[in-house]
């Protein structure tokens, strides 16, 4: 069975400090990987996606970056946090192959709650 693990569960950080969030998927090779951001009580905004190791596409510009150093790992980071970065960060995976074809269910992790003060 596939499992998705996000870390840390929660973070409280100061404005201007760096951030690194991680996501690991086990039990599935070469998945499509995604980072989503959710404001409190808000919708889900896709930030990045990756269909293979070393390749990451940015969907929105939020002074964040993402990397995929391994097939099963996706990292979200920034060197300087802003207040607007607060929210709930969700990693997700889907089956490879028909990217964007509307056939791929997204499987979300439990998320990381980020508070920037």
């Amino acid at each position, binding site marked *: 069975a596939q499992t998705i693990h996000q870390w840390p569960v929660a973070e409280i950080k100061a404005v201007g400090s760096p951030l690194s969030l991680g996501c690991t998927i086990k039990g599935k090779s070469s998945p499509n990987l995604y980072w989503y951001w959710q404001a409190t*009580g*808000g*919708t*889900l*905004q*896709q930030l990045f*996606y990756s269909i293979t190791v070393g390749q990451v596409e940015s*969907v929105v510009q939020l002074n964040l970056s993402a990397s995929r150093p391994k097939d099963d790992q996706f990292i979200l980071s920034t060197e300087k946090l802003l207040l607007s970065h607060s929210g709930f960060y*969700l990693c*997700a995976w889907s089956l490879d192959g028909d*990217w*964007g*074809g*509307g*056939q791929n*269910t*997204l*499987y*979300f*992790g*439990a*998320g990381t*709650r980020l508070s920037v003060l």
Partner: protein
Amino acid sequence: QQQVRQSPQSLTVWEGETAILNCSYENSAFDYFPWYQQFPGEGPALLIAIRSVSDKKEDGGFTIFFNKREKNLSLHIKDSQPGDSATYFCAATGFASALTFGSGTKVIVLP
């Protein structure tokens, strides 16, 4: 541009009632519509989905009604239970397009 709209923003029903959640979309190329259920502090999980070739999909107490001509769909939660209290997101996608989520409907089921 909000491509997927949901209403109402929140909905309170009594246990045993049917909750009706609405969703509309603008992009005629969308052909797959999943609904996700999210409990507080958790990631969303796929609840039920429909393709545009169908006008109805049932799974347990959840039913999607889809109207392609009007570009809208609804999720009916039959015999609502307190455990169904959650936020429900309508989403849509089509060929070569990312999954687009609506703003969500928070459902509260009172015992």
